[in-house]
């Protein structure tokens, strides 16, 4: 990819952040609560079958999907 701006793009976090401080607290707590999963073996997604219904006129979408994992 070619970036227009040098920062900001990679910070595509999935969670809602109301302030930077709140976001950092959230991230710290996430790591504290779930960090032990780093070493727990987890399955891998092999197939994604999905329907994505886009509603551009109201900035919304609806997804149904199946993951096949192993």
């Amino acid at each position, binding site marked *: 990819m*070619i970036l227009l701006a040098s920062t900001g793009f990679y910070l595509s976090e999935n969670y809602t952040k109301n302030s930077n401080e709140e976001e950092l607290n959230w991230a710290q707590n996430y790591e504290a609560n779930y960090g032990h999963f780093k070493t*727990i073996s987890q399955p891998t*997604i092999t197939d994604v079958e999905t329907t994505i219904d886009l509603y551009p*006129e109201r900035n919304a979408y609806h997804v149904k999907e199946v*993951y096949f994992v192993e």
Partner: protein
Amino acid sequence: MISEILINSALDVSMLTLNSNDLILKNKDEKFGQYLFKTKKEIMPNDSLEINFEFEYQITPINGHQSFNAIVDNGSLRISNYFPSIGYQLDHEISDEIERKKRAMAALPALDSVHAPIENPYNYQFINLNVLVSTSADQSAICVGELTDHYSINHRNYFHYRAENIPFRFAVSSAKYAIQKSNYGDVSIEIFHDPKHHQNISHLIKSIQKTLAYCENNFGKYPYQTVRFAEISSFTRGFAATAYPATIYINEKQFHLNLTGGEGQDVINELAGHELSHQWWGNALLKPVYRQGSGVLTETLAQYTQLMLYKNEYGEAKMLEMVEVYREMYESSKAFSGEEALYSADPDNANVINKGLVKMYELYLLIGEAKINAALRALLEASVSVEAGDYAGFVG
């Protein structure tokens, strides 16, 4: 053996359903979007199980600022960022070292060295994607891979896309697109654009054809039947263009530039060369393990391809102008934060783009285009056979 599965849902989607015949929900943690499941029986290697999801997303003032992921009128969406993921999410962590210190958190482990061992066989976590996208009656939806079917029912347009063996990274866009088609040999070229933005289309198509010719002749066959370029709204800020399997999204700001406007650059040629070459460097054909130096195999090689295409189009003197543009950015970052060797560079650092282009130019002066391209073709062939499971030829 797996007995617990942690599923991560994006916080700004509403998860309506999340279930599996093979799993029992043990804990739901809404604050972090975490769903912890126990397996009904232990999962052995090669066991496969199904997990079903249904979720909704609606832009609200709270999450409206996430413009890149957000769906907007005539916009595009890296929707895979909103699909549930499995296991611990490293990218949720605070990466800023000073902030971690301030919070008395342990330092994060350093990025894997270029010499660190790789698990063998390495799990690329590639997926097969089968997606039916629908949108309103006046719009077309663009996704990744091959379009296998499209039709209309009840004032909705449906588009069925499939892609095999791709990284878990896909996007959709929807807009009132005009379509311009062409081809390169048996590869179909499709440009989806705002009907008002037609002035650069034929130039873009020519640039795509030249890029396909160069990459196929020098590196290997283009892996899809279609090359799709889709213009997207400048509302999706922060990037000029980005490449997905068979589909490249271009920001409208880049798309309808006035090329005769005097800066002496050909942005369309640069974009087509760089982005399309990512189909060879950094998507399904060559997906380096994320670590020090991995950006050389994606951004640096895309920059090199862009440079060679520019040279072939405009000659050595114009190529030098391009080298100087990147040399300046490289020198100024060097003055600011010091020299960083490319082979061990942080892949998220712009060095792989700026210094990368300059060093590839110097290599070009040293050994020439033919030798570089022969080496890159061999690298790609090795990578494709490793991804297909043939490790014997690659070890050592």
